């Protein structure tokens, strides 16, 4: 408890920790926001390709300038990330390869080039390159004020653009072709949104690392989708989840020596995702399971009801009893027939005629006809 209080104190008053927390919060907010659109557009893998493709850009930017100015490294990352995205689009258009193959190719080729360049740079005798390899798995503890300013500055521009073009981005994500028919240049909207996604990713690379950055794009959005059916709420929630897990992960890795930030952030965001997948009302797995059980029960009673109806319709006397064994045989030896019959009797739909034989009530016949009509009627 004392530790927690100490951590809270440091979060506000310790310079390093405060810097780390602010940086992680800013990047989590931005990647969460843009991630919501990426997930809805089924472009989750694009984030992975962009972040991996950014690595050679970072190293090249350093090699050309010889300095680790955060703005220049981010610029290099953004250019490389963009080139990677364009190559994915180009491969999809020019070849018959599906998009996931194109993404896989670009991701691994760019990342491979990045690793080669990184190894080469690290053999240099000067110490200037020290710290470049933190871009692999991220190291929030290396964040300084200038880094946070770059993250916050570019992040604010990204968020402002999303607010400004909200209507266009929504249209692009939901029904691109319809947007095109309205005369809104959907290609331009696509380029804009993808560019902002690139920015959202590259500002997080120093903290989270190229390997795991896509988790900050996909996971908060996937968790947010569970809780709401409104795009606006989803984007805000996704941003909040991103900020929360960003801060948690970054602070956890900064207060413990030697743990890279990427993995701790991923652990934090995983927790959010697991809770959301399990517990969110309506879409959560727990609710799904309860609904499934209820449906199963309904299907079982429906099946027995229609079987009884089929048997009864072959008899002139509705009250003619039909043995349980026949009903069991009709349902391919299903179990629980007696239990279901008891349920039906309690509902006044079936009646026990003799020890082991059952008939439909008039109400039961009506209910059976309704079940049959529902099956034939389709979805309406």
């Amino acid at each position: 408890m004392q530790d927690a209080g100490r951590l809270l104190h440091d979060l506000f008053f310790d310079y390093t920790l405060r810097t780390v927390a602010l940086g992680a919060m800013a990047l989590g907010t931005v990647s969460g926001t843009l991630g919501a659109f990426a997930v809805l557009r089924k472009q989750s893998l694009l984030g992975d390709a962009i972040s991996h493709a950014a690595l050679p850009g970072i190293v090249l930017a350093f090699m050309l300038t010889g300095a680790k100015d955060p703005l220049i490294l981010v610029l290099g990352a953004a250019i490389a990330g963009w080139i990677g995205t364009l190559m994915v689009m180009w491969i999809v258009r020019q070849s018959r390869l599906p998009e996931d193959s194109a993404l896989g190719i670009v991701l691994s080729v760019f990342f491979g080039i990045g690793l080669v360049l990184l190894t080469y740079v690290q053999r240099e005798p000067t110490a200037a390159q020290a710290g470049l390899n933190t871009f692999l798995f991220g190291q929030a503890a290396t964040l300084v004020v200038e880094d946070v300013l770059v993250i916050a500055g570019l992040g604010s521009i990204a968020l402002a653009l999303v607010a400004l073009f909200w209507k266009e981005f929504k249209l692009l994500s939901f029904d691109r072709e319809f947007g095109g028919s309205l005369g809104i240049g959907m290609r331009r909207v696509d380029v804009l949104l993808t560019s902002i996604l690139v920015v959202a990713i590259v500002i997080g690379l120093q903290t989270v690392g190229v390997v795991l950055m896509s988790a900050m794009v996909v996971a908060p959005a996937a968790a947010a989708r569970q809780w709401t059916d409104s795009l606006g709420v989803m984007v805000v929630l996704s941003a909040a989840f991103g900020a929360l897990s960003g801060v948690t992960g970054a602070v956890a890795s900064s207060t413990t020596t030697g743990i890279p930030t990427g993995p701790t952030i991923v652990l934090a965001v995983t927790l959010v995702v697991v809770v959301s997948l399990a517990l969110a009302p309506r879409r959560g797995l727990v609710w799904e399971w309860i609904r499934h059980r209820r449906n199963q029960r309904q299907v079982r009673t429906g099946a027995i009801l229609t079987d009884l109806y089929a048997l009864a319709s072959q008899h002139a006397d509705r009250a003619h009893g039909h043995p349980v064994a026949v009903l069991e045989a009709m349902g391919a030896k299903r179990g629980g027939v007696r239990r279901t019959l008891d349920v039906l009797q309690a509902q006044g739909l079936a009646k026990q005629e003799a020890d082991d034989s059952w008939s439909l009530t008039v109400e039961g016949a009506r209910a059976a006809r309704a079940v049959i009509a529902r099956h034939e009627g389709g979805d309406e």
Partner: protein
Amino acid sequence: MTAPSGIVPAIEVNDLTVAYRDRPVLWDLDLTVPSGILMAVVGPNGAGKTTLIKAILGLIEPAAGQVLVQGKPYRRQRHLLAYVPQRGSVDWDFPTSVLDVVMMGRYGALGWIKRPGSRERELAMQALEKVGMTDLARRQISQLSGGQQQRVFLARALVQDARIYLMDEPFQGVDAKTERAIVTVLQELRDTGNTVIAVHHALQTVPEYFDWVTLLNVRLIATGPVKEAFTESNIRLAYSGRVPFLPAGGDGDDAAADAPWLAALR
């Protein structure tokens, strides 16, 4: 049947050829659609029906030919066109409401950046009323049935307040009641001087619903008033002999059984 009005045709297609890679989907199509008609576009799968709609809307770059909308290239006439895409072309699990989707029909008139406001909401509610869905305005779109989805798309086209309505299978996956409701809306559009072009699959309802028809199979087979163009030989030509005509009626209640007590239930 309404007589085609106006001198300038609603749509004029000249020498239109569209190809995906090396496969032609539409071949040298010439088509004149007069104003004020309700036209069905029919043909077998892969005949280029959807492609024709998309080419008219400028969503597909044709390999050759041109499309004129009321005498001018479509680029300058987009505001005259409304579009109902195939129901299956979007993800209905998208987090948005019925009203929001319908308001998207106003996005073109709003232009960039400007947000929809109370006026757009009002127009959207009016459109929802025309398709009988005002009570579902707030509903999340994943909770809609097929027929309701189709009506949402129709309402979205209605708020566009266009003159020419292009619809890709507006009856796909809807029940008989919804189909009647949609037909009524389409006929009202036609009767108020608009032009409606709909890709249609059920051949037996063409004469009942439409007054004009275009038969298509990569090439144009026939176009004109239903009475003149919708002939057996043209249909055979379009479907290469395999006519998917269904016998009329025969939709009886199979649950009818012999037992007398059953009859009393009905």
